């Protein structure tokens, strides 16, 4: 990186990746992996998503770890970001729910209202 221009170029490229510009129906799965998320069991959940996505042979899906989202009481938290910016936040995600999210939300297109952060009270 030598100049501000170089940074801008890298920024645009990285933004395309992040916004999934080049993916048809791209989906980004973000798993909260701060210490709080990890202590609540986020690591196996992330692995489960990787396994499930592979098992169903799904393409155009980016699985990534992110930091703490601040709503630590609901960890592990998983956010499904669709290409148009729609963001669904699932809370207290375990391996079984991960499976369900992949099958219902990603494949069949039904969001699982019952597990969305917004409708869950502790």
């Amino acid at each position, binding site marked *: 990186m030598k100049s501000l221009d170089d940074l801008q170029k890298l920024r645009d490229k990285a933004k395309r990746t992040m916004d999934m510009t080049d993916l048809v129906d791209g989906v980004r799965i973000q798993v909260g992996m701060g*210490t*709080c998320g990890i*202590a*609540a069991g986020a690591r196996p959940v992330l692995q489960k998503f990787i396994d499930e996505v592979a098992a169903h042979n799904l393409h155009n899906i980016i699985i990534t770890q992110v930091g703490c989202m601040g709503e*630590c*009481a609901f960890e592990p938290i998983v956010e499904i970001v669709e290409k148009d910016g729609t963001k669904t936040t699932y809370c207290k995600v375990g391996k079984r729910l991960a499976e369900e999210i992949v099958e219902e939300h990603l494949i069949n297109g039904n969001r699982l209202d019952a597990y969305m952060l917004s409708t869950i009270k502790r």
Partner: protein
Amino acid sequence: MTLESMIQKYPASPEYLVEALRDYQMAKNDHSVTESEIVKIAKYFNVTESKVCSVVSFYSFLSEKPKGRYVIRICRDVPCFVNKSESILKTLETRLGIKPGETTPDGLFTLEYTGCLGQCDHAPAFRINDMTYVDLTPDKVKAILSEYREEKS
């Protein structure tokens, strides 16, 4: 890993003393340094032995006293306290038969206090070596301890 190969990862400058000590102790099963090791470390970093001792006695992660293979550090801060960390401590004490600062006779566990682990939203919490456990209840503690016991046998 030998002491030599461990400390030689660090430049021979006094500023790396704390980190090298901490690293070395983490790698050892008894989480401590002996007198003869202190002599070597002092020589390598070109400081007096008393300086190494003064550093070791100051930081709670460093020790001259051998510790158990698993060091349980229980958070004694307020968020854990208001969430009944006392009952966690008592459970550990009765299960292990030791008080904070002591090591079980089989050399498996050492019980210690620690400062805040930053898990206040999931209090009470403790750490066993590098692993953090949260939302503890006496029941959960019993299960965790037996896991570690099994791992050993």
